[in-house]
């Protein structure tokens, strides 16, 4: 189970990144990444539980064997059942639990701080900005820098600057708003916060580090899809180029352009032909099912095996 978790954490990022690189199906790609994370966490939880139950059931035997190897003869039960053995193991268990609690608390606090920040920011933006009558919850701030973003909060806000408005024509503006609305209605910030929290709490795990970047990239593409459906690809691409470069772009003029924004633009410019797209979808779906089923399947397979190991004479 531990081996499985390690293997998925180490090797799945390369496979998943290849499958979701083009963003042919952003939604399936996102699901596959989340399935990998859930799969690793679930198998780790199962492994931990196995370890604890094995330790609990086999502890006295282990202690007796250890006691015998130290003293050179069989110990009387009162010796290995004494505090000398029980205190260290209790301390180990306690410190492990404590470490987990500290990690969880730190994660919770950073999430809470981010939430407060979001609430304060959206509340201030909703008072300071001028309401855009065409779109509810959308405000315009007087600022020369071109910026467009959404703040999840209660209430949520979509913020545009006058600098951004100056670069966009009406169609491009509705594309930008549709993109931000898709983020808010899809609660994309929760997915981003989850992966950010995991990579911060457990640094150096390839899956979590990679998932953070990929989840944010794929949620952008999901929102792009929504915006393209709403206002058409040309308006969205022109808006991406205009706000990305700070220069106005006519919607009708398009061109092919290495990075995240470029990938987003290229994907909108040149949709993959149907057959590779179907193959990619099939591959992503199978990987997702495999990842989702693996922890349960492994428990079922290794259950009898583990029982044999525990029942071995030396143990």
């Amino acid at each position, binding site marked *: 189970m531990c081996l499985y978790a390690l293997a998925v954490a180490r090797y799945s990022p390369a496979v998943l990144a290849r499958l979701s690189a083009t963003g042919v199906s952003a939604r399936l790609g996102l699901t596959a990444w989340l399935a990998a994370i859930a799969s690793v966490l679930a198998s780790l939880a199962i492994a931990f539980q196995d370890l604890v139950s094995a330790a609990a059931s086999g502890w006295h035997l282990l202690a007796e064997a250890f006691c015998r190897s130290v003293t050179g003869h069989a110990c009387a039960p009162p010796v290995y059942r004494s505090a000398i053995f029980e205190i260290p193991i209790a301390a180990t268990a306690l410190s492990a639990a404590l470490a987990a609690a500290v990690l969880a608390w730190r994660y919770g606090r950073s999430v809470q701080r981010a939430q407060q920040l979001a609430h304060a*920011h959206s509340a201030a933006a909703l008072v300071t900005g001028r309401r855009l009558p065409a779109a509810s919850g959308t405000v315009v701030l007087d600022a020369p820098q071109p910026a467009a973003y959404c703040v999840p909060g209660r209430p949520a806000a979509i913020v545009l600057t006058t600098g951004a408005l100056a670069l966009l024509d009406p169609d*491009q503006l509705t594309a*930008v708003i549709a993109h931000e609305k898709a983020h808010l209605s899809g609660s994309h910030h929760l997915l981003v916060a989850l992966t950010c929290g995991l990579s911060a709490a457990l640094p150096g795990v390839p899956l979590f580090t990679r998932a953070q970047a990929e989840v944010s990239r794929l949620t952008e593409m999901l929102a792009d899809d929504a915006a393209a459906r709403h206002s058409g690809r040309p308006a969205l691409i022109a808006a991406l180029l205009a706000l990305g470069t*700070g220069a106005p772009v*006519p919607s009708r003029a398009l061109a092919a352009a290495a*990075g995240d924004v470029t990938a987003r*633009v290229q994907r909108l410019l040149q949709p993959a032909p149907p057959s590779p797209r179907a193959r990619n979808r099939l591959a992503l779906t199978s990987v997702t099912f495999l990842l989702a089923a693996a922890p349960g399947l492994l428990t079922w397979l290794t259950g009898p095996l583990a029982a044999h190991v525990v029942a071995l004479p030396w143990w």
Partner: protein
Amino acid sequence: MRGFGELESVIMHMVWDYGGPVTVRELFDELSQERSIAYTTVMSTMDNLHRKGWLQRVKEGKAYRYTATASREEYSARLMREALAAGGDTETVLSHFVAQIGDPESDVLRSVVRRLPARRPE
């Protein structure tokens, strides 16, 4: 009242546009011309804004005179600094439409734009 804090926003913009210190009565007179609203609603909203730190007030006779604690430009600039700060908590909270200018990638995109027909939207 439409939406959360809509009245707060309307009143703040009126205070900013007014220029000098303003009383609840003066704002109410102006506001009641464009919408039906109770005097007490305006008063309690301004009280809220004062409590939240948006407005400061000085007592003059029986009424308060309100002024904004900071100009609209100062608030906008503060929000922009928060929104455009790289790293830190805001980055995970706010979701930008597209990466900011100055990104090495945007040089690539800028060259793409340069190769586009030189028509600008009207």
